[in-house]
C-alpha cells in the first residue's frame, strides 16, 4: 500500500491509517495485558487466586464508554471521507463503462470505444457503470475506488490520476468462470500524449487490423473466444470459417456448416443453437449495428491465412 | 428416553416461537411486495383489479369463520363437550377445503387468462404487473400450502378426539393446532387487502 497522491486514495488511506492505528494500539494493549497476567499470576508462583472479585462497575462503565467514543470517531471519519468519494468535481470527463462477462468496454463522449480506460493526468474522470449480464465490480486499487456494475441500474465512481502511468482495474464482484480474467488497466496519459490519443485518426494507418477484428476486441468477444484456437468459455474463432459445428438443439445433435447466416444467428440468437459441449451463456450481441455484424461475419469467414 | 414429563405452557410457548418463524418467512415476501409497490404504484393498482375481489372476500369470510370454529372447538373440549369439539374440528376442515376449492377455481380462471408465473402473456404486461402477479402467486401459494398443513393437523386432532385421546386434561395438541390455524388466518388477513383491495 505505497502512499499515493491522488485525492480518492488519500481520502481512503486517511481512514485506513486512523482505524488500523487505533486497532493496533488496542490489540497491543490487550495482548500485553493478557501475557503479563498469565506470567505474573501463573499457578506455580500463585497457587491460590489472590482475589475473588466479581466485577467493578466503574471499570466496566469506563470500558463501555471508551469504545463507544472510539468507534463513533471511526464511523464519522469513515463517513465524511466517503462523502468525498461520491461528490464528483463538475469538470469531470464522463466515460461510460460497460461490463459484461468477462470484459470491460469504455465509451467516450465522442463515441469512441476502448477496452482500456485512457484518461488525462490531472483531470477528474467520472466512470458511469452499467452491466449487460450479471453483477460486476469496477475496482482500481491504486485509487481505492470500487463500485458494482448492476444490470438495469447505473452506478458511478470518480477518480483523478495525478501521475502518468498504467494502473490495474479488477472485477471485484464474482461473475463466474472468467471473473479473475476480467482485468484491464487505466492508462493515465499526460497532456501531450492524451491530446495525441484523443484526436480521431482520420487516415487509418496502413498496418490497421481488419475492422471486424477491432470490433471483436472492442465488444469483448475475445473474452470468450480465442483467436489462436485455444479453448476458452466459447469455441475458438480460429478455423471457424467453413467448420462444421455440432449443435445441440434441445437434446438432439445436428451438424451445421458455419456460414454467414449461421454466424449471424449465433450472434443475434445465441440461445437458438448451442454448440455441443458449451454452456448457453453467450449474450446476444443485438446491440451491434448491422454493418458491425457484417464486418464481424466477413472477418470470421475469411479463410485463415497461414 | 426421557421420562414422561408434561409442560403444556412450554409446548404452547414453543408453538408461539414456531409461529414467529412463520411470520418472518412470509415477511420476506411482504418486503418484496412493499418495495415493488413503492416502485410501481399504478401498475399494482391496475393488476390488483385483474384479481377477482369476490373470491377474495368469500375466502376471507371462510377463513375467519374457520378460525372461530377451531377456537370454539378448544373451549368445547375444555368444557368436556368432546362430541361438540369433534364436530367443530370437522367444520374447520370443511371450511379449509372450501377455501382451497375457491382458490382452485380462482386460479384456474386466471391461468385460463394466461396469467401465471413465466407465461408469455404476463411478460407482455410489462414489469410492474408481472411482479405483482408473481408475488401474488408465490404468497398465495405458500399460504395455500399452510392451509393444507393446518387442515391435516386438525384432521389428526379430530381422529384423536374421536378416539378419546384428546380430552379436557390433554388438549395440548388441539391447542397448538388451533394456534397454527389462527396463524394461517392472520397471514390471510394481511394478504387479502394487499393483493385484492389496493386501488
Amino acid at each position, binding site marked *: 500500500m505505497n502512499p499515493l497522491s491522488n485525492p480518492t486514495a488519500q481520502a*481512503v488511506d486517511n*481512514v*485506513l491509517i486512523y*482505524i488500523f492505528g487505533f*486497532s493496533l494500539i*488496542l*490489540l497491543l494493549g*490487550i495482548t500485553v495485558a*493478557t501475557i503479563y*497476567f498469565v506470567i505474573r*499470576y*501463573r*499457578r506455580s508462583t500463585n*497457587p491460590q*487466586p489472590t482475589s*475473588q*472479585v*466479581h466485577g467493578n462497575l466503574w471499570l466496566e462503565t469506563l470500558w463501555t464508554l471508551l*469504545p463507544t467514543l472510539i*468507534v463513533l470517531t*471511526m*464511523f464519522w471519519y*469513515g*463517513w465524511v471521507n466517503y462523502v468525498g*468519494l461520491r461528490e464528483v468535481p463538475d469538470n469531470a470527463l464522463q466515460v461510460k463503462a460497460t461490463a459484461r462477462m468477462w470484459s470491460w468496454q469504455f465509451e467516450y463522449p465522442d463515441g469512441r470505444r476502448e477496452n482500456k480506460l485512457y484518461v488525462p493526468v490531472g483531470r477528474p474522470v467520472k466512470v458511469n457503470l452499467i452491466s449487460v449480464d450479471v453483477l460486476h465490480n469496477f*475496482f482500481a486499487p491504486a485509487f481505492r475506488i*470500487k*463500485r*458494482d456494475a*448492476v*444490470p438495469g*441500474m447505473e*452506478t458511478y465512481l470518480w477518480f483523478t490520476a495525478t501521475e502518468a502511468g498504467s494502473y490495474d482495474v*479488477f472485477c*471485484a*464482484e*464474482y461473475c*463466474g*468462470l*472468467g*471473473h*479473475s*480474467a476480467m*482485468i484491464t488497466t487505466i492508462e493515465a496519459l499526460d497532456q501531450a500524449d492524451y491530446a495525441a490519443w484523443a484526436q480521431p485518426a482520420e487516415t487509418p494507418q496502413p498496418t490497421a487490423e481488419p475492422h471486424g477484428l477491432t470490433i471483436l476486441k472492442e465488444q469483448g468477444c475475445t473474452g470468450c473466444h480465442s483467436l489462436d484456437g485455444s479453448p476458452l468459455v466459447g469455441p475458438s474463432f480460429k478455423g471457424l470459417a467453413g467448420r462444421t459445428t455440432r449443435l445441440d438443439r434441445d437434446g438432439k445433435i445436428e451438424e451445421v456448416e458455419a456460414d454467414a447466416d449461421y454466424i449471424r444467428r449465433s450472434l443475434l440468437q445465441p440461445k437458438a443453437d448451442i454448440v455441443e459441449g458449451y454452456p448457453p451463456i453467450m449474450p446476444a450481441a443485438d446491440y451491434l449495428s448491422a454493418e458491425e455484424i457484417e464486418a464481424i461475419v466477413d472477418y470470421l469467414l475469411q479463410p485463415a491465412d497461414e | *428416553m*426421557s421420562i414422561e414429563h408434561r*409442560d403444556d405452557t*412450554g409446548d404452547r*410457548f*414453543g408453538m408461539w*416461537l414456531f409461529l414467529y418463524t412463520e411470520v418472518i*418467512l412470509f415477511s420476506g415476501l411482504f*418486503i*418484496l411486495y412493499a*418495495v415493488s409497490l413503492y416502485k*410501481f404504484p399504478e401498475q399494482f393498482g391496475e393488476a390488483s383489479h385483474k384479481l377477482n375481489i369476490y373470491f377474495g372476500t368469500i375466502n376471507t369470510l371462510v377463513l375467519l369463520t374457520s378460525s372461530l370454529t377451531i377456537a370454539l372447538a378448544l373451549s368445547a373440549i375444555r368444557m368436556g363437550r368432546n362430541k361438540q369439539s369433534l364436530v367443530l374440528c370437522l367444520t374447520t376442515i370443511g371450511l379449509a377445503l372450501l377455501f382451497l376449492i375457491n382458490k382452485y377455481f380462482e386460479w384456474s380462471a386466471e391461468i385460463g387468462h394466461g396469467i401465471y*408465473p413465466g407465461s408469455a402473456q404476463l411478460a407482455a404486461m410489462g*414489469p*410492474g404487473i408481472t411482479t405483482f402477479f*408473481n408475488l401474488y402467486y408465490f404468497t398465495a401459494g405458500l399460504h395455500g400450502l399452510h392451509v393444507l398443513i393446518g387442515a391435516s393437523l386438525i384432521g389428526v386432532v379430530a381422529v384423536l378426539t374421536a378416539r378419546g385421546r384428546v380430552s379436557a386434561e390433554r388438549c395440548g395438541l388441539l391447542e397448538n393446532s388451533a394456534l397454527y390455524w389462527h396463524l394461517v388466518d392472520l397471514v390471510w388477513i394481511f394478504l387479502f387487502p394487499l393483493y385484492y383491495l389496493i386501488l
Partner: protein
Amino acid sequence: MNEATPRYGGFFAESPRPGILGWLLSTDHKRIGIMYLACITSMFIVGVCLGLAIRLELIAPGPTIMGAQTYNATFTVHGVIMIFLFIIPSIPAAFGNLLLPIMIGARDVSFPKLNLLSWYFYISGAILAVIAIFSGGGAPDTGWTFYVPFSTQTTTNVNLAVTAAFMLGFSSILTGINFVTTIHRLRAEGMHWGRLPLFVWTLYATAWIQVLATPMLGITLVLVLLERLFGAGLFDAARGGDPILFQHLFWIYSHPAVYIMILPGMGVISEVIPTFARKPLFGYWAMALSSLAIAFAGSLVWAHHMYASGMSDMAIMIFSLLTFLVAIPSAIKVFNWVSTLYKGSIQLAPPMLFALSFIFLFSIGGLGGLALGAAASNLHLHDTTFVVGHFHYTMFGGTGFAFFAALHYWLPKFTGRMYDHKPAVIAWALLFVGFNITYMSMQAVGIQGMPRRYYDYLPEFHTLNRVSTIGSWILAVGLIVMFVNLWRGIRGGRRVGNNPWGATTLEWQVPSPPPMENFGAQDPVVTKGPYDFKGVVADEY
C-alpha cells in the same frame, strides 16, 4: 467405550434400544449431541481439505492444480460446508445439546423428539449438499452467497445446494426453538437467571437469532429456486425486479448468522477462562447482557456487506453507524475476559491455551471488521482477500478455536478419558502459528488490492500468496496432530474423575460420562452462582 469391561459407561451404555438404533432413534440430548459432533467434525475435515486445495491452487499465478471452473466450485463448496454444515451448528447443536440441559439441571430439552428431527434435517441437508457436488450439472459455482442474477443463470447444481441450505436452516430453527423453550421452562429449582452459566446465556441469545433470522434465509432461497424454475424475474432488473433486494434479504439472515457462529464460542471461552484462573468471571451481568446486546444489534447491520452494491448513500451511513455499535458489546467481553485473569491462579492447560488464543485471534478479526465497517475504507477492502482474512480470523480463529477449546475441555467429561497433554500443546502451537501466517498474509495481500474469489492473480501478489499457502500446511499438520491426539484420548486415554479441571458448573457434578437421566432420582437444587470456586478442587494437577 466399546471394550468389554464391566466399567460404568454412562449414557453410552444405557439405552432402551440396542446397537445403532439406540443412537438413530434416541431422543436423549447427549446421544443427539454426540451424533451432531461426529457429523460436524467429519464435515469440518472435508471443508478444511477443500480449503487446503484452494490454497494450493493459489500458490502461484496461473493454473496449478485445477481449472477455473473447479476452483469456483471448490471455494463455493468450501464456503457452504463451512458455514451451513460446520460452523453454524458446530457449538450450539453439538455442545449445546450435550451440555445445555445438564448445565441448567434438566433431564432433557423441552422437545426431545423435535431435537432428533432437527438432526435428521441436518443429515439430509448434508447428504443433499454432497449429492449437489457430485451429480449432474457439476458442483455449484455461485459462492456461498448465491448472489443473483448469476445464481439464477448458472447451469450448475444450484437448485440442490439451495434446497440443502434450506433444510439446514430448518434444522437450525428447530434447535433454536428447543433451546429458548428449554431455558425458559426447565431450569432446576434455584437456577434463576443470575445463576445461569455464561455458555447458557450465549446459547439463549443465539437461539433467538436462529428463530427470528433463519426464516428469512429460507424464503430467500425458495425465491432463488422459484426464479430458476419459473423464471419469475423478481430479482431480474429487466423485468422490474431488483438484484440488490436479494442481497438485502440474504444478509438480513446472513449477518445475524455470523453472531450465531461467534456467540456460543464466546460462551465457551467464558466457561474455560474462570475455570483455569480459579476466579469468578469478571462482570457476570455485563457478559450476560452483552450477549443479548450482540444478538439484537447484530440484526441491525446487515447491509454493511453491500456498501459497494449501488445501495443508497443514506443506507450506507445508517448501516455504517449501526455496524460500529455492534463492536461495543464485543469490546466489553474482551476486556472482561482479560480482567478475569487478574490476580487469578492461571493454569495453561490445553483448553486455556485455545481460549487465550481465541481472544487474540478474534480481536484481530473483529478489529479488521472495524476497517470494513467504515464506509470509506470498506470501498477499498470490500471483496478483497482482506475480507477473507477477516472472516477466517473471526470464524476459524474465533469460533473454530473456541470449538477446539470446547473439545479439549468437555471431551474428558463425556468420555471419562483424558487425552495426552503434550501433543495437545504441540498441536495448539502449530495451529496458532500456522493460522497467523496463513491469514495475516491473506489480509496483507488484500490491502494491496487482490480481489477475492480469484482463480488467478497478477505476479505482484505472488510472494504473500505463497507464504499464505505454506502457512496452511503448518495449519494442516497442527489439525492432524490435534485430531489424532483427541481420537487416541477418546479410545484409550487414561480414566479421569468427574471433575478433572475443578470446574463449578453443574455438568461437573454428575458422573462422567453422565447417566441417561443426568441426575439420577431427584432433580438437583442449585444454591450458588456458576463461578464460585470456594472448596472446589480439581482431580488433575
